[in-house]
């Protein structure tokens, strides 16, 4: 490649990478998805076949919290390990960077409602609260 030339990936945005199994994914969890300090399964929501998360290679838990478009303090941040997600049948993790967010990734979810109910229970068991709600201790 000539000096100063850009790869196709650079021109279109950030390159897509493979997320290692050991890496963590962060997502916000709104106050409504807690009962006291206990996270509830409603936090896992299918948005057109997937759920948005941030890869910890490019975003911290704190940065994930601050990305909230409404009051960030209404949100906690949870962490899910990529390998744990992949061990759940019908789930996958993909890096899908946005021009504005290199960390953006997706947990690919099943479409079938029974499967979705099952994976929400299983994801809940993987989730660790890394930034608790304001006013609660970790």
């Amino acid at each position: 490649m000539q000096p100063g030339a850009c790869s196709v990936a650079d021109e279109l945005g950030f390159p897509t990478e493979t997320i290692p199994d050991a890496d963590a994914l962060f997502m916000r969890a709104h106050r409504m998805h807690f009962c006291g300090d206990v996270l509830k399964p409603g936090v896992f929501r299918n948005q057109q076949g997937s759920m948005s998360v941030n890869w910890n290679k490019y975003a911290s838990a704190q940065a994930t919290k601050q990305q909230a478009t409404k009051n960030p303090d209404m949100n906690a941040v949870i962490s899910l390990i990529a390998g744990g997600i992949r061990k759940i049948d019908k789930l996958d993790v993909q890096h899908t960077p946005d021009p504005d967010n290199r960390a953006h990734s997706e947990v690919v979810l099943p479409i079938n409602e029974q499967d979705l109910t099952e994976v929400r229970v299983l994801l809940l068991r993987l989730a660790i609260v890394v930034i608790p709600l304001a006013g609660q201790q970790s």
Partner: protein
Amino acid sequence: MPTAGAARAWDRENDFEVWPQVPTQTSEPPRNEELQTEIEKAKKILELTNDWDGQGAESYASDTFDRAITFLAAHSDFLKQFGLALPVPHIGAGPNGSIDLHWKSASWELLVNVPADMTKMASFYGDNYGVQKIKGSVDPKTCNPGLAAWLMN
């Protein structure tokens, strides 16, 4: 001597005998104080407006909430016939305008999701953190004896 209130209760018991046991189709709230408290607490879900989480979450329709309560009433009434009380679930904001009914104990967990789409069945999944699993769909207007039995694990 029986009081007037007791006599009325006895009359109601007689009425129950002529009702079909399953399916139970009632929207009458379950008469379980702890459960009633949870239902009242959960009504705050109905106050949420579209995009309440800043991530596009939908609001919740009272019809969806009522279907979830009907499900609880049906199972509570079914178990009451055997002198059993329905364990109290957490009634929560589910995805896409649905309502989650979530039970979690030391030995088992069950999630029932009542969708916003009135034409769709509720879906459920439960396990004992081991090999025993229960998964499927159910009409939230009726009592599912298999689910009721699971709740008595």
